């Protein structure tokens, strides 16, 4: 039976980008469907009734929700090419720990950097930079979080690079100045076709954030 893969997504979504990258790494042909989040499709509501969120990966009609779960699923089903998760259980556990840290800390702090102003933003910025430094330390001198090859944590984190310019402009700081190794890692990842074609341009993301801020009444 021919494989049918559909991705319900929204172009600036950090989470959607992860699944795009994983699918591209494996060379999987799929149908990309852009969702209007103010007017969600019947398909989205049917495929993710609990959260009604993107991304949703639909494989032969069956939905997989949550981006990190999608990445792991893609890795397991199409296991012959470009392995993303390491085979060693301890390294896998380390990777899952950092992916969880990215979602719990880095994502939330980054959101607060662009969504808040004044004192609240100053605090968020400080904590955001601390969290980036922590993950930069985890990277160390390795070319990728996965070691010699691009892997699960790289997939989980590289989408944030497309949002760096927006965070920097909103928070008035330079991520490169604070975390040069992280920027070097990001540029290395961007040389991969799977990453370059899955991430939107930084200016486009910034314009989108400015629109969101206006819409939310944050000036």
């Amino acid at each position: 039976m021919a494989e049918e893969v559909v991705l319900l997504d929204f172009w600036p979504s950090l989470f959607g980008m992860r699944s795009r990258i994983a699918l591209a790494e494996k060379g999987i042909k799929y149908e990309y469907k852009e969702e209007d989040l103010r007017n969600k499709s019947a398909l989205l509501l049917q495929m993710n009734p609990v959260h009604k969120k993107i991304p949703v990966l639909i494989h032969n009609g069956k939905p997989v929700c949550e981006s990190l779960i999608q990445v792991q699923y893609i890795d397991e089903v199409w296991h012959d090419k470009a392995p993303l998760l390491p085979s060693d259980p301890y390294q896998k556990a380390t990777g899952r720990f950092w992916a969880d840290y990215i979602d719990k800390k880095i994502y939330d702090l980054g959101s607060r950097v662009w969504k808040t102003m004044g004192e609240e933003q100053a605090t968020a910025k400080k904590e955001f930079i601390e969290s980036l430094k922590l993950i930069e330390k985890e990277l160390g001198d390795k070319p990728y979080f996965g070691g010699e090859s691009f892997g699960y944590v790289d997939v989980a984190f590289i989408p944030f690079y497309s949002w760096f310019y927006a965070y920097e402009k909103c928070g008035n700081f330079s991520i490169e100045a604070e975390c040069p190794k992280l920027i070097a890692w990001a540029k290395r990842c961007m040389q991969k076709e799977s990453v370059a074609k899955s991430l939107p341009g930084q200016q486009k993301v910034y314009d989108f954030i400015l629109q969101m801020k206006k819409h939310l009444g944050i000036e």
Partner: protein
Amino acid sequence: MAVVKLFGAWFSPYAYRVIWALKLKGIPYEYIEEDLRNKSPLLLQYNPIHKKVPVLVHDGKPICESTVILQYIDEIWPQNPLLPADPYDRAATLFWIKFADDKGYLMSKLYQTDGEEQQAAVKEWLEMLEVMEEHALIGGKKFFGGEEINMVDMAFSFVAYWLGVIEDVVGLEIFEPHKFPLVSLWIQNFKSIPVIKENLPDADKMFALLKHGREMMLASKSD
């Protein structure tokens, strides 16, 4: 033989997930009780980022975050599996574990607040229970894991046991069995499993701890 150590706290549902997993698989381990108001240097060394329990130490190597720990345990000791083997079923299982994990904050939100904030917490609890009733237990399954418990059952343990204690502390009945018949049946089934029944924190002791904490919080608010 490799040594397995578990750093936990006697009332933590997250620590209990690991205890149940290790016992189900028959893995001997050394349990170290942590006083969370006075964390040991060893805990801070093993979990410098979150400084939390549980932490599993296997062969001297620490693993943090209960869901990460359980997946690790399942991979190292495959007997009595906690996750399905089929990738799609596994993805669906991981979805519900994440759902349960993301709702864990509702425990403290319920007993550490009052007034409007607490009413908001009650509303969120009911919404979560409705999702469980409507979406998670479809097909008349005995457990989330089917005929046997799996990681999802363990992840929802805070609904099966911890919620009851918190309800007593705050004097509110949030879980009305007739409103959530499938969840209610699951709770009874879950608590009757020997490894669960024999490994739960003492309810009276927990009640005293949470009640004291709540009273301190309310007193400090009225200052």
